């Protein structure tokens, strides 16, 4: 997908889809639901003020990203979870997998989660991610590889711990 798509005003359904995509991206950055909601709302209002709406996904993502790093600089977003936000223990196998993954992703930093999200969820190539994040393609490829290895190691370690516990 090219990032430089022309602007047009989306209809309500499209805008909702953009908001959901923006939320997921914001969640990948913050790993925190309420912060992600705040971010996507702030970005939406900013775009509404500037352009009369959310006109493109890449613009929304860039706005969210800028807001996120602005707030990080001002230390308004802290990179740990409060006790209230710790997920409840899983009650079945599927939710257990979900929770394990949430923990695994939570152990990544925002840069690693962002790259993983853009690559695996949004389906962007390393070149496209490099354009969005202003990094070289090789840097992005290297980040994807290292993050994947890190996740796999964490997953294996977690699996071994569970086996030994049994």
């Amino acid at each position, binding site marked *: 997908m090219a990032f430089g798509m022309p602007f047009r005003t989306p209809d*309500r359904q499209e*805008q*909702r889809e953009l*908001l*959901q995509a923006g*939320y*997921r991206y914001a*969640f*990948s950055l913050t790993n925190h*639901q309420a912060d*992600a*909601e705040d971010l*996507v*709302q702030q970005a*939406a*209002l900013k775009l*509404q*003020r*500037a*352009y*009369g*709406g959310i006109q493109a996904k890449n613009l929304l993502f860039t706005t969210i990203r800028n807001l996120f790093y602005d707030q990080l600089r001002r230390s308004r977003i802290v990179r740990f979870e409060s006790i209230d936000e710790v997920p409840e223990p899983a009650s079945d196998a599927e939710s257990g*997998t*979900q929770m394990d*993954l*949430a923990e695994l*992703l939570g152990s990544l930093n925002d840069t690693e989660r962002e790259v*993983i*999200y853009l690559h*695996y*969820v949004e389906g962007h190539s390393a070149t496209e991610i490099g354009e969005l994040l202003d990094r070289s393609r090789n840097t992005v490829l290297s980040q994807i590889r290292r993050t*994947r290895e890190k*996740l*796999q190691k964490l*997953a294996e370690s977690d699996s071994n711990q569970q086996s030994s516990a049994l």
Partner: protein
Amino acid sequence: MNAPAPLEDQIRDYYQSQSLSESALESIEAAMGEVRPEPRRRSPSFGPAMMAAAAVVVLAAIIGGVQLQREMDTRRVVVELAQNHRKSLQSEFQATAIPEIQAVMDRLDFSLLPAADSLTERFQISGARYCSISGQLAAQLRVVDRGNRTPGTLFVASLTPKLDRTRNCATCLGDVTVELWDDGARMYGLAWNSQ
């Protein structure tokens, strides 16, 4: 028992399962509905201002250039007259009145006779010779100021466009003072030894 999905799929499923609640979506939409788009602020256009500034600069450069050229031409003539005066060359023609000089200096294509009598009243003439000012033929007359008895050299040349670029002035060049003026048809230069 099913094999676990690849990590990539799990990640995709995990994030795809995240979504804004309906109430959160409505809240954002409502907030967006309350925000009026700001009118697009056009970046200030510097085009006309830059053009005007450029025009002023060009005009200033032209005027400055013309003035500079005028100063340079004047300076060159003044220096030339001072040098001619310092040479104190012998007069080729002995005469005490301008009409007499005019009669003998037949190579001159302009009249030596001044528009006003003030020149002949001011100076006593003793002789004249041909000379050159800025490459054009001119006359230099040996004169004495009737008022203070100061000897000097009076230069007269046709006011060609080239000499017309000079300006009226009185300049002291060390031991010689040079005064330049014109009467609309001729350029006059008077050089005398500074006191």
